[in-house]
């Protein structure tokens, strides 16, 4: 009997290697778990019955193109769309022997922080069904947390891997921009989108990142990693300089329970041998959100223009081409994509470009420089991943600004193109709290090292209480 709730991907590999289970049995065990638990969670939009590979299965966020398997990005405008090609990350997973378990739910076009913006209904948090799993990769986070996948891929634009990982008590990496190919990923904001591994442990995360990362000739923004990915083993933090950015740890809106557990984790860093010091990222936090909400919608307004009803996906006919566009897009897009398309179109318009998009790009440089300065003195910067634990369904759905604030701590380093790892660091009122580790470009190995050492010391039980 395979206990999918507890089984890590690394352990699953061991089972396969020792031939204690077959790939087909493993795949079946997860499908059974999905059959048993996903009706209440709705982590998956669809599952794949037959395993293709001989390795550990995996779930993909539904914006990763999978040849012949419907890929909707959580939008009605893409319902029924069958990609004719695999995303590079899908190809890499396949080449590593993984079989696809299914496609997971998400906020439409990755726009959201709760997965409530999915056109196909929300996903629920495995720790508390009244609460959201975070987003936009909420389906992948819930699937891993509830033992419905040994690991999964999410995508992170403003925090869409780190924040749901935090809210579901799992490990999520947003890699350095340019280390993982975006080829075949339904684009939201091209200069920010990155695919990231979502796993139960830091070691699993490093194992998966090792498969994903590296230059892809199909994505000219990718680069080769300067160093190979190391699977972390060290359990101390000697020689590591941990910076605590004041603004990220004392921001308004951080719940007391979250703050307390994060403080305790910072203390733990010291106990493990790290040097801990305070630092400051004043402009990154002040301007990060505003900058993000100009750049991301601007790029989105252009990226989403291809959904016009001409070649694939939904089409609602009209008496002329304009009317067809209007009707198709009106029926196909939900409120959040519409809101962001409007924001972005406005920000790019003649006469506004310099004040909005142009200015945001300048601020982006300022934010990157501010982070670079902090990394002259520190190896990692730490903070809570999300200001709050998982919130209730509907709590923020009607208030976009409150929802946007959910990503206030993850956005600044994303804008700077930096890697960030979220690990679970404890429970507040019975709900997981995530701890964010930010490093300079290509510092994933350091993040894995620190994350792994903390994980061992914390001993967090990733199985949701209600499922034990």
């Amino acid at each position: 009997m395979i206990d999918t709730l507890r089984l890590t991907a690394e352990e699953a590999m061991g089972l396969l290697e020792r031939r204690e289970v077959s790939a087909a049995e493993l795949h079946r065990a997860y499908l059974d778990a999905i059959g048993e638990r996903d009706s209440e969670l709705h982590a998956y939009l669809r599952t794949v019955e037959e395993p293709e590979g001989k390795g550990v299965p995996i779930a993909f966020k539904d914006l990763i193109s999978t040849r012949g398997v419907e890929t909707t990005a959580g939008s009605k405008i893409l319902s029924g769309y069958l990609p004719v090609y695999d995303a590079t990350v899908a190809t890499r997973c396949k080449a590593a022997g993984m079989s696809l378990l299914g496609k997971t739910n998400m906020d439409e076009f990755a726009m959201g922080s709760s997965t409530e913006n999915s056109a196909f209904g929300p996903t629920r948090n495995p720790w508390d069904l009244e609460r959201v799993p975070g987003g936009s990769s909420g389906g992948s986070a819930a699937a891993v947390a509830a033992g419905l996948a040994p690991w999964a891929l999410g995508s992170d634009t403003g925090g869409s891997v780190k924040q749901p990982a935090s809210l579901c008590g799992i490990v999520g990496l947003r890699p350095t921009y340019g280390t993982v190919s975006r080829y075949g990923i339904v684009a939201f904001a091209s200069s920010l989108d990155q695919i990231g591994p979502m796993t139960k442990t830091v070691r699993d995360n490093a194992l998966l990142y090792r498969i994903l990362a590296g230059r892809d000739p199909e994505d000219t923004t990718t680069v080769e990693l300067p160093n190979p990915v190391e699977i972390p083993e060290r359990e101390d933090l000697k020689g590591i300089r941990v910076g605590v950015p004041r603004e990220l740890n004392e921001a308004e809106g951080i719940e007391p329970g979250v703050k307390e557990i994060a403080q305790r984790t910072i203390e733990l860093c010291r106990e493990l041998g790290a040097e801990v010091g305070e630092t400051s990222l004043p402009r990154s936090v002040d301007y990060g959100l505003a900058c993000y909400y100009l750049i991301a919608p601007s790029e989105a307004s252009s990226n989403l223009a291809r959904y016009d009803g001409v070649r694939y996906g939904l089409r609602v006919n009209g008496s002329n081409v304009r009317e067809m566009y209007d009707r198709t897009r009106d029926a196909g897009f939900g409120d959040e994509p519409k809101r962001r398309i409007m924001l972005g179109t406005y920000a790019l318009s003649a006469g506004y470009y310099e004040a909005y998009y142009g200015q945001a790009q300048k601020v982006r440089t300022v934010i990157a420089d501010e982070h670079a300065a902090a990394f002259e003195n520190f190896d990692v910067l730490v903070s809570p991943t999300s200001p709050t634990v998982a919130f209730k369904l509907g709590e923020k759905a009607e208030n976009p600004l409150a929802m946007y604030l959910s990503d206030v701590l993850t956005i600044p380093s994303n804008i700077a193109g930096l890697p960030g790892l979220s690990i679970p660091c404890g429970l507040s009122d019975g709900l997981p709290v995530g701890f964010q580790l930010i490093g300079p470009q290509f510092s994933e190995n350091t993040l894995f090292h620190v994350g792994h050492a903390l994980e061992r010391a914390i001993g967090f039980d990733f199985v949701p209480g209600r499922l034990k």
Partner: protein
Amino acid sequence: MNWEPVIGLEIHIHLKTRTKMFCRCEVAYFEPENTRTCPVCLAYPGSLPVPNATAVEWTIKLGLALDCEIAEHAVFHRKNYFYPDNPKGYQISQYDEPLCVNGRLALPGPDGDAEIGIVRAHLEEDAAKNVHVGGAEGRIGGATATLVDFNRAGTPLVEIVTQPDLRSADQARRFLQLLRQTVVELGISDAEMQKGSLRFDVNVSVRPEGSDELRTRTELKNLNSFAFAAKAIQREVERQVAVYGSGGEVVQETLHFDPGAESAPPLRSKEEAQDYRYFPEPDLVPLEPPRELVGRILEGLPESPATRIRRLAAGLDHDLAEDLVTSGRDRLYERVPGDRRAVANVLMNQFAAAGVDPEAANPEELGRLIEARSRIPREKLTEALAASGDPGFSAEQYLGDGLVADTAELEPIVERIIEANPGQVEAYRGGKEGLLGFFVGQVMKETQGKADPRVVNELLRQKLS
């Protein structure tokens, strides 16, 4: 008041690369619809562009041939607009940081060179082709459906923008011919208007001679040949002059010509200021052409057509020199021996009409043919020129074939003609030497044009003296 035309051009040239600008689909004309497509050029979700390195190098080559500065940092921008032939909803183009800027093309003219400034030459992708069905042929009005053929979507295009430096319709035509020839010789494009691999728009305004103001311009679109463009520009210049002459104002508008009906008056439309919301393409890193690559391309540039026009014009009419070069026949011209003017004329007339590839023709044999052209019957010459590109072509057979030069054979005929025309013989001997032609004609008639005129002349002179 005298009015001066102010003309600028925007030229689009299809690069004849093997594959498209941002994907690996084959660039192909006249193939079945939608057979040269992939996720990138169909804008499937998640697909990403990868620039065609050859297209970038060729654009640099063109930029250097046009004496442009090659940017050290060039950026692709997205030009956003909705249309079914624009699958991504944006065209990847260049905006304020193009590959080539600030160039010039010296246009040789009968009165010296005119320098035409090149504002920029940039690289972009072409749109797909909309095919309107159900109405009048190919027209959107009355059509019941529009089909889209994506074979052309994403094929590489270079856009060249000139300064408004052209001062006459004829100069514009000559500029286009020279530019076309330059592009063809660089080997980067067929630049054939019929195929659509060269297209251009013209901006026209007029101003009082001597002034340097720029008045309201109109844009002429869908001009389908250089000659027609010159006519249309001339007509538009005259119209604008008439408008100002009657105290009116020229309105900024676009004149759409009908490529199928040159004489039809153009459709006029107001120019709408469309907001394309340009922004840097985040899916592509900036182009930073290495300087050694630029240097290598510069060194490899062939001698420019303009230089050759200047050289040939030293010994020929300017127009003839220009025609030889822009028709691609000047290199052959330089290798064909014989009287320069005669060679140039035959090459530009009978030889051009024969449609022979100048590269294939044998210059020596062509020279013999041209030298002997007055002795060769017209049809024979046409036949000979048409065959002059065939492998192993020899002029010999046309020079000798059918021409009877044998005195023994011609003598009896000449004697017979003299006997039959005693009156004319007497007149000739009396001093009317112009009658020689009459006798030659008679002999030719008798021999059905096969007698060698030189031999006949000689024989007649002997016998009549």
